[in-house]
């Protein structure tokens, strides 16, 4: 930079940041801090078989809260995800229930064979809990886990959970601890939005729940897209469009009964909305289920494109790739007008 740069350069527009965010919550939204860490720490008081493990991301998966309360049950494995998964298998073999945390990209991509061979093949009781699911980081493909559900869904024995908010995480933690076998759960960390408590919602493993009903369109969603779907449904109300929202937090095993029942109701367009690539996630799971069952409503799919996504600010990226409330609302209105 030349010394006079500051005096001659025109005022620059303020750029939106692609920096790592601590919370996915939008401004003014109700939140709860670190629901996973607090819930696990509390559960571990009675479940003495629980141990916490991480690969240098304890502070970034809220596991540090567990570590603070149960330091002797916390294993820092270093930045070594393959070791993390293999060692979790070993501890599970010896009768413990490891909660192993890292980012979704590292578990699903780097450590896949270790999860497959050391954990899933032996049906071991390891809970893999991973932050930054789908497009929840502006860092680009290195941190954007856009194919984690497809990868983990394809693995035999694996239960796959995509929770929506703090309320759901608080209920899902004891639920997955009560389930014997391997679980992959996506994690929202930091100040996590609080939404589903207003719907009298209770998480049940393997169950889809209808959060609101509506005669025109059924939005089938998981994770943060359920939060968005509820906003979309409210926004569609003003256009006299009645949208139902079916929340499907358990991606595998899929609640086929509830999905088929709701999708079979006549005259309702089905839109699956997911924070994941359009390849291999909830959308294709639901589409396959409907086709195999002979239920064929008008079907549309909101998901991330099958490409390496850009770095940038999350609101910009959510708009660009079509998973923001505004874009989803617009697309559904367009489809209904076809």
């Amino acid at each position, binding site marked *: 930079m030349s010394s006079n740069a500051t005096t001659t350069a025109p005022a620059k527009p303020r750029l939106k940041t692609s920096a790592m965010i601590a919370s996915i919550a939008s401004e003014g939204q109700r939140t709860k801090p670190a629901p996973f860490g607090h819930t696990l720490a509390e559960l571990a008081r009675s479940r003495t078989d629980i141990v916490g493990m991480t690969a240098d991301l304890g502070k970034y998966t809220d596991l540090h809260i567990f570590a603070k309360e149960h330091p002797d049950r916390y294993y820092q494995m270093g930045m070594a995800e393959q*070791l993390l998964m293999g*060692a*979790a298998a*070993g*501890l599970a073999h010896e009768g413990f229930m490891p909660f192993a945390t890292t980012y979704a990209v590292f578990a699903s991509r780097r450590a896949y064979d270790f999860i497959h*061979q050391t954990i899933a093949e*032996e049906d071991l009781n390891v809970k893999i809990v991973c932050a930054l699911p789908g497009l929840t980081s502006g860092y680009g493909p290195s941190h954007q886990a856009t194919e984690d559900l497809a990868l983990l869904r394809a693995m035999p024995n694996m239960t796959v959970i995509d929770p929506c908010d703090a309320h759901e995480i608080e209920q899902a933690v004891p639920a997955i601890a009560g389930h014997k076998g391997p679980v992959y759960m996506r994690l929202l960390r930091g100040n996590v939005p609080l939404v589903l408590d207003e719907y009298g919602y209770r998480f049940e493993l393997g169950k889809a729940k209808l959060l609101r009903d509506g005669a025109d369109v059924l939005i089938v969603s998981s994770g943060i897209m359920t939060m968005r779907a509820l906003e979309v449904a409210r926004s569609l109300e003003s256009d006299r469009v009645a949208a139902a929202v079916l929340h499907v937090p358990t991606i595998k095993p899929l609640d086929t009964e509830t999905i088929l029942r709701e999708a079979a109701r006549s005259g309702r367009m089905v839109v699956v909305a997911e924070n994941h690539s359009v390849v291999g996630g909830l959308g294709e799971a639901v589409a396959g289920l409907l086709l195999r069952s002979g239920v064929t409503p008008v079907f549309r799919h909101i998901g991330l494109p099958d490409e390496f996504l850009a770095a940038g600010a999350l609101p910009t990226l959510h708009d660009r790739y079509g998973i923001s409330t505004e874009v989803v609302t617009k697309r559904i209105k367009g489809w209904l007008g076809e």
Partner: protein
Amino acid sequence: MLEEFVDINTTGTIDHRDGKTGHNVDLAERAYRIRRNALLMGEVQGQGYIGQALDIADVLAVAYFHAMRYRPENPDWEERDRFLLSNGHYAIALYAALLEAGFLPEEELETYGSDDSRLPMSGMASYTPGMEMSGGSLGLGLSIAVGKALGLKRKGSSSRVFTLFSDGELDEGSVWEAIMSASHHKLDNMIGIIDVNNQQADGPSTQMLAFEPLVEKLEAFGWYVQRVDGNDLPAVVAAFDAARAHPEPKPRMIVCDTRMGRGVPFLEAREKNHFIRVDAHEWQLALEALDAGRTA
């Protein structure tokens, strides 16, 4: 001559008597029987990783009939020492040892590698009594061992975790993650055994990805390391004894230099290969050659 090598662990449960005759059996005889079992299994399928089974038989004889605590009638006995077979293709060798140790009935040997057998070609935990992990995707064992060793310490157990893996597995980065981790966590209840037969799928291991100087490397990583001739029974016994008795809070590694095909001279002399070719008529010749060596 090896009868002085009785179990130094007085709480151990190894029965040194032959199940049928009641006579004491020395380790050389155990190693012979492990080789024989492996050749008989190889003959069933007309193939198998027999070169490796023959090279590691002495180490397995020492592990199962000198060093480890276990109860063959109760493979999940909580106080057992754990034995992890990371190199799953060595299953034929471990089955041979498990048969000799009484985990499996002798007649089951004939099912090796067949449909519905408990003895699949690549070792898997859910198939075989006494098999502690599903290996085969190489480089997994030592990471599992770290978790088991941490778990055993949590439980206040005095059991040890033995992990057998091959020199080729040293190519896998995850093995070095586990090597660092075992040392970081001071896992003195871990005993690693590396079979250095200098042969992996595409050729001599040292030419695929150089891993020497192995002892110095492992020592620098914080392990108590011994390197022995893995086909010299007294040396292997001494190494296992030293590994168990070593006072420092470090994980222990026994690097075993072995010769593929050991015990069957014409296989030992055959051109070295990951998958040694044995013609149909040669299995019987191999058994005869093994017997000749026994009485020699």
